[in-house]
């Protein structure tokens, strides 16, 4: 079985080509996950690029990306597979005079099987990246289902038997840590916690994502965001917000970053009223005046 990446440097280079700048932690964990053939569990605050990483890995390895978006109440039928009841009923009514035995053999065949993401990822003959997104949103039962998939890369369908992976997919599980995942699941994965990036890396990310931004603005933008993260806010701005903010500044044609500009665009960075108040107070931002946008 071919490995996904040759070395850590290889990971860094190919992810960078795919438009994702990985830190040492990220590049090493991705390399090891591919090397050891284990799923990678990624945790971290919202907006630091957990899902983006999966997409970048798919691009970098020219794999198909199969995504299972978890939500409360997701079940076997949405995650693994489902029998197409309506079609089975049609088939039974269409062949009235057939015996029970042959009907039974016919309605439980591939033709009536609806593949859901997990089964699709396992049966895909091409190289695959399987992204199980926001697993903490799903119920605990789903974790039980995942154990077989993540541990042995196989799925048991009672009527058909066990389906084993043709090629081991690269599995990425993300979680916002809204609830603790079970020990059994964690044991089968490598663990990566993505935090806010260093100022240097964040500058590089802004430069990559918003090349239109004035070169002289890159530094202060990242610094202001860094300072905001040091305050005790309800939701600190993450990379996604930094990039949005940089785009906003480009759209406003801001040439330098003054208190008034920050104040009038604070809504892009902070999403809570209380956070606005703290930021205005601690950064001593001036009152927003009309026509002060640039």
């Amino acid at each position: 079985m071919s490995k996904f990446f040759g070395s850590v440097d290889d990971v860094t280079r190919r992810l960078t080509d795919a438009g994702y700048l990985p830190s040492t932690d990220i590049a090493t964990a991705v390399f090891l996950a591919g090397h050891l053939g284990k799923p990678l569990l990624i945790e971290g605050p919202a907006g630091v690029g957990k899902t983006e990483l999966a997409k970048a890995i798919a691009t970098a390895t020219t794999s198909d990306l199969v995504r299972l978006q978890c939500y409360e109440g997701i079940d076997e039928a949405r995650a693994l597979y489902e029998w197409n009841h309506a079609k089975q009923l049609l088939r039974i009514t269409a062949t009235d005079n057939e015996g029970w035995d042959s009907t039974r053999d016919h309605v439980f065949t591939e033709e009536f099987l609806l593949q859901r993401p997990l089964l699709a990822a396992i049966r895909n003959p091409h190289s695959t990246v399987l992204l199980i997104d926001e697993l903490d949103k799903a119920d605990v039962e789903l974790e039980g289902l995942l154990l077989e998939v993540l541990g042995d890369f196989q799925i048991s369908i009672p009527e058909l038997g066990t389906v084993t992976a043709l090629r081991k997919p690269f599995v990425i599980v993300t979680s916002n840590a809204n609830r603790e995942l079970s020990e059994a699941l964690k044991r089968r994965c490598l663990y990566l916690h993505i935090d806010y990036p260093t100022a240097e890396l964040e500058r590089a990310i802004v430069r990559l994502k918003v090349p239109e931004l004035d070169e002289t603005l890159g530094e202060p933008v990242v610094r202001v965001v860094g300072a905001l993260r040091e305050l005790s806010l309800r939701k600190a701005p993450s990379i996604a917000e930094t990039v949005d903010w940089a785009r906003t500044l480009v759209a406003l044609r801001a040439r330098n970053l003054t208190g008034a500009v920050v104040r009038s665009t604070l809504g892009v960075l902070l999403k809570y009223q209380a956070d606005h108040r703290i930021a205005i107070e601690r950064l001593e931002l001036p009152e927003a005046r009309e026509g002060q946008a640039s």
Partner: protein
Amino acid sequence: MTTRSTRGTAQPPADAMTDRLVEFVGLLRDHGIAAGPSETIDAAEAMLALGLADRNRLRSGMAACLLRRNGQRAVFDQLFDLYFLTPDQPQLSSTPESIDALRDRVVSALAQDDRAATADLARQALTELGAYGGAGTGQTSAPVTTASGAGWSSYLTMKSLRPEDLIARIVAGMGGNSDLDTTVHTIEANRRLNAFRTAVQTEARLRSAQLRGTEYIARRGVQSSTDQVDFLGAREQDLAEMRRLVNPLARKLATRLAARRRKSVRGQIDMRRTLRRSMATGGVPIAPVLRARKHGRPDLVVLADLSGSVTGFAEFTLQLVQALQDQFNKVRSFGFIDTCDEITSFFTPGEPPTPGTAARIVRNSNVARFGSSNYGEALQGFVDNYLDALGPRTSLLILGDARTNRTDPNLAALQAMSDRAKHAYWLNPEPSRSWSTGDSAADVYAERITMHECRNVKQLAEVIARLLPT
């Protein structure tokens, strides 16, 4: 100036490395990181795959294999440094720089955010300022016994360096002229200074480990992870970190509560939705849909000890209670030291309380007459004035250490309260083994009311999860 480090160039034999890894994992377990054998095997494979040359990579890789939870990384890093980095022998430069010159260099390195220079400076500062008891005088190669008292101290270093006074100069060195730049740079300078402090501490630990043997320091000199720091013994920087832990915790508990409610649906069939769903199965209603039951939301009454001995604890619990109040119909909070007063109005819905709320409440409300805890009086005050706050749907939560200064515990008042409430619980920030010591009435109270030990964020999370109404 010391030369750039040449760490980890020697390749130890494989057997020694295995032993070292196993010993390392054993220590991780001692510090509450439960890595099993399969994780150890992964870590070994990671070591093979990554090689030992690049320590940063090795650290990232082993963290990926051995850790399973956010918040463990700080402990892991400290132990990793002890086990897999060998520090340079401290070299005394022939002419020790004056402290002023050293401070100038710290200012310029931090202003430019020059990592390599900062790391070098941390080492140098420790060499020149942090040695005590004869460490660093040339005979460091022989292990020093603990009794000899020699070692390296980050505290001594920082005391002579006084980096707090440098903030203004660092900010000036970072350039920028507007007001915004100044405030932003001050915050940033503080952060860098903290990083510098950590670097000095790490270096001091490394060198002390060399003097005393790795295991000695690894067991004693490593800070425990934040969710296991005691409320009562927490320092200022721990508190800030713990606050960050409590916020997501509250949301986590709230989602769990919501999920539990949804699952308890049973009863009448919802015809409309059942028929709608049966379309997928050709009109056969295979999965009936049940009508969701309306839940009355329960009330919560919190009674918190705000006396000086437990302020840290009270603040956290208030924060958590605040965040949970969306889930509860009505939250009323009361504070007490030696009398009892309602403090609900000190919290605004949807906004976490700011640090220092507890102190503000004590100043502006009627919770203290003489200022030392008197549980008997406080409970009586509640019974006299606010007993109607408790009803058949109310959960009562009392927070405090039950140290009554040898006054009457007033069990009758507590009994009256717990009789009226649906549930009554007591959270005690003291370890249960000291409940019966000194002036603590915890044991007496525990006979009348369920008392939980609640010493750190981890226990607080467990207790609150258990208390949530189902």
